């Protein structure tokens, strides 16, 4: 049971790390940061190891905490392959982020209470581990709430900043709205099964009426959708993620959003089966609109971290879209495509956590040295920070789904599935799936435009302000922290033969079917075949690209002659080149804004047309209700008496 020991070690290390961080920072801040980073690294390593081993062995283990038996409500922690996958995800992101935090906190947060920050950071990771391990409704909700509150504390860590506080408040309200829906859904389930354990929910699943199931599914979409940032529940995300310290943003975008994916998968596939296929259509539609709108908002954003946050909305949209498609095909009893789409959803979760944490860390590196997040005020950093620029470029290429990096692999799976699954699908699906392919294609193309803008705005051309002029390359720990996910981007992109079989097994166990239903074949170690169709060989592609680069280097020298390189000022119609002549990031995205103006018009509509009326309605309702609030103790006692009487009558009835 190595995996269980590793997980225990990881949890204990996180608790110790939190305490050590508090104690040591009181003596020396730098030592506190170092200790906190190191415990974080080891805790993540153990979590990664535990997740990997559980996935390899396909084992499941349970632990009930003996000291906490409360009237049959013992918290049960279980790790099965699904939980293990998300533990792996937390570990893989936590490791580089902890390493990065050492340098980042030293550069940015020495003036503030880093001990508290370290403690919150460790407990935040612990709460996420708790969420995926929890195996009864009560502990799930407790961990879920801890995760929300701890991340809220981290978001408002910059207590001086009014923006952070506002962002934190929006986050708090939205996350609790989501939790309220989750609570309702678990209460209904618990009412029907008489217990709060997930095992009892699972046993109960086939006895629920279809209407009740659909209501539960709706609750799940709102509850988990609020956490994942599905439009229109996304409004907190572009506020809260940028407001948090960058390593926390990386953790929130990279990992915390994935707990919503975990929750939805666990909930739908374990407690609500069997279900109709229109659920999938509903989820896929919402998710696809989220993806498309999310990226159009990102494309015109000029704040680097907000841009990344909007792009997280887009990616969560893509993940939920793939889950929605899987639901459709489960409803149609098509084990082949349901498992392909589920694999794509899982793979994209993993990929997104890797490249989004990389991009947020790079944004933090820029912020720590240039002290601005505005693309308009940056520029030219590639000369000052060449390594950060290269790492950001890798992240940008990966997130734009360009081969041979990892983002392409999941996008490839989804596209293949979308097109090929129309064969033999029902008539309405044969219209729905092509439409989805069209919108997803549009989304993918805008992603590339967005990240060209982000990369060129920050790193290329001339520095547009003195902030950018005085930037320097960041410390080695920060670069190391960014280099790990950059290498993972390449590794995951090149080795579908390693990842796909694991994910396929996981998807099969989740769907309760034979892992061979999805006919994956791996040939020559790296070629991925999907049921005889759709081959892709990333290693060969990389090899050919490298040969192509070699050819491009050789041919001109061979056909021409060896020439020299001279550097001159950029030609600017006879005037000395200056930053003012550059095309600014806002200018860069202006044509896009014109083309997609209809989409952009919705950007500010959520507050105006959804949230303000909702808040005003709530306020009006509470004013009405305040009639019963008279401020006299006797009256309140009378209310109590009345309530008691009513309850007694209802029970005796």
């Amino acid at each position: 049971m190595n995996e269980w020991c590793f997980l225990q070690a990881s949890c204990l290390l996180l608790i110790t790390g939190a305490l050590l961080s508090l104690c040591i920072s009181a003596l020396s801040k730098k030592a506190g940061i170092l200790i906190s980073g190191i415990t974080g690294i080891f805790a993540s390593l153990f979590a990664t190891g535990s997740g990997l081993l559980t996935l390899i062995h396909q084992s499941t283990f349970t632990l009930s905490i003996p000291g906490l038996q409360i009237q049959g409500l013992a918290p049960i922690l279980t790790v099965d392959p699904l939980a293990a996958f998300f533990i792996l995800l937390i570990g893989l992101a936590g490791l580089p982020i902890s390493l990065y935090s050492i340098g980042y906190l030293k550069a940015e947060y020495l003036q503030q209470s880093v001990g508290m920050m370290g403690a919150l950071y460790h407990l935040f990771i612990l709460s996420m581990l708790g969420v995926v391990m929890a195996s009864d409704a009560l502990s799930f909700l407790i961990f879920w709430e801890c995760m929300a509150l701890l991340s809220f504390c981290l978001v408002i860590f910059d207590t001086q900043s009014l923006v952070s506080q506002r962002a934190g408040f929006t986050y708090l309200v939205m996350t609790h709205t989501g939790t309220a829906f989750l609570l309702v859904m678990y209460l209904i389930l618990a009412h029907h099964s008489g217990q709060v354990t997930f095992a009892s929910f699972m046993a109960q699943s086939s006895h629920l009426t279809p209407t009740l199931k659909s209501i539960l599914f709706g609750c799940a979409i709102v509850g988990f959708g609020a956490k994942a940032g599905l439009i229109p529940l996304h409004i907190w995300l572009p506020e809260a993620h940028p407001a948090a310290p960058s390593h926390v943003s990386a953790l929130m975008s990279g990992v915390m959003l994935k707990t919503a994916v975990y929750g939805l998968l666990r909930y739908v596939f374990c407690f609500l089966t069997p279900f109709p296929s229109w659920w999938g259509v509903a989820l896929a539609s919402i998710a696809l609109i989220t993806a498309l709108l999310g990226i159009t908002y990102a494309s015109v954003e000029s704040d680097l971290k907000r841009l990344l946050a909007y792009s997280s909305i887009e990616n969560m949209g893509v993940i939920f879209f793939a889950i929605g498609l899987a639901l459709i095909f489960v409803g149609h009893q098509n084990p082949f495509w349901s498992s392909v789409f589920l694999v794509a959803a899982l793979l994209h979760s993993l990929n997104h956590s890797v490249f989004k944490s990389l991009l947020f860390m790079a944004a933090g590196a820029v912020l720590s040295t240039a002290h601005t997040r505005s693309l308009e005020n940056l520029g030219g950093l590639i000369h000052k920070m060449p390594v950060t620029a290269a790492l950001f470029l890798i992240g940008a290429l990966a997130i734009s789904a360009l081969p041979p990096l990892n983002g392409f692999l999941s996008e490839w799976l989804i596209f293949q599935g979308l097109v090929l699954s129309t064969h033999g699908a029902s008539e309405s699906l044969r219209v729905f799936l092509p439409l989805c392919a069209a919108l997803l294609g549009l989304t993918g193309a805008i992603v590339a435009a967005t990240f060209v803008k982000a990369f060129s705005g920050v790193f290329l051309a001339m520095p547009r302000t003195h902030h950018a002029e005085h930037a320097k390359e960041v410390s080695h720990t920060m670069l190391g922290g960014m280099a790990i996910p950059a290498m993972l981007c390449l590794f995951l992109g090149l080795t579908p033969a390693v990842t796909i079989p694991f994910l396929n097994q996981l998807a099969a166990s989740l769907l309760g079917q034979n892992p061979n239903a999805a006919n994956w074949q791996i040939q020559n170690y790296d070629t991925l075949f999907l049921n005889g169709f759709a081959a892709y060989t990333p290693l060969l592609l990389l090899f050919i690209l490298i040969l192509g680069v070699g050819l491009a280097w050789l041919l001109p020298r061979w056909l021409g002659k060896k020439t020299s390189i001279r550097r001159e000022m950029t030609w600017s119609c006879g005037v000395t080149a200056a930053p003012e002549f550059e095309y600014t990031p806002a200018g860069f995205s202006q044509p896009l804004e014109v083309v997609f103006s209809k989409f952009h018009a919705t950007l500010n509509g959520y507050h105006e047309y959804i949230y303000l009326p909702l808040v005003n309605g709530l306020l009006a309702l509470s004013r009405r209700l305040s009639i019963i609030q008279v401020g006299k103790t006797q009256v309140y006692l009378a209310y109590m008496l009345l309530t008691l009487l009513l309850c007694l009558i209802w029970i005796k009835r």
Partner: protein
Amino acid sequence: MSEPINIILITLLQISLILGLSPLINSLLKKWKANLQGRQGPPILQGYYDLLKYFRKETVISEQASWLFLLTPLIVFASVCAASLLIPTITTNSALSSLGGVIVFVYLLGLGRFMMVSAAMEPGSGFCGMASSREMMLATLIEPVMLLALFVVILLAGSTDLYSAQKNLSELGLQLYSPAYILALVALFIASIAEMGRVPFDNPETHYELTMIHEGMLLDYSGQPLGLMFWSAWSKQLIILSLLANLLFPWGLAMQHSPVALLFALPLYLIKLLIVCLAVVLVETVVAKMRLFRVKDILGASFIISIIALIFAAQTLGGKGGIP
């Protein structure tokens, strides 16, 4: 011939065909266009002279340029080389069919574009930036159209790699030209003209501010990197023309790797290519360059056409098996 040598030979043949022929085809397009406009036009070998000239010139780059600026032409060239292996030219018996299918093809072009657009932002010149921004705007519309149109092809052909698709299409006979297929070809043709950077979307002959898209991005390149960028752009043009030609007339490709079959396939391929070139030149001559923001209308229209084509294709094939 043994299998590995065969693969290497066919791969080399494919790459050298595309790289070797692309300057000629580009000059030919220029020549024909000039003739149609009553001008003499450049000599037909001008492309090769230009390349040799660029490769002998000194490279002058901007002070603002970094490693990225010099690396980009190499990556763009490599992405075009890789893309050239994914489309059939004279044989349907691909050497590297498992390399990837249409999605890899479209995204490889995307990789080249990403790098080129980024690098063009490097010198900090207003013109390059303008061109980059416009290129990216066009790309957001071109990429989905190409993807969807090619999806129609793979649905109808029942295969995701273009080589087997080509073979299956040729077996369909005249039934091939179903409404879905024709619509897809129309959409693909419009997107291809935009992707090649030709009139009415862009003008490959000028870099005036009003028409500045692809040429604008190359303004700050010179010498060998410029030569590479031109060569890549021409090769990409040839790749797209070949794709169009072979989809329009999917017959006459060599089914196996025998030298005789390949020799017969080559002239047929060239004839098909010339027909498509003629169509492109006719469009260029008849249609005027469009205002930038009207481009989105016609590309949007081709996007809708490609969606309709895909729905048609899915509907016509829905009942039939083949792919589970």
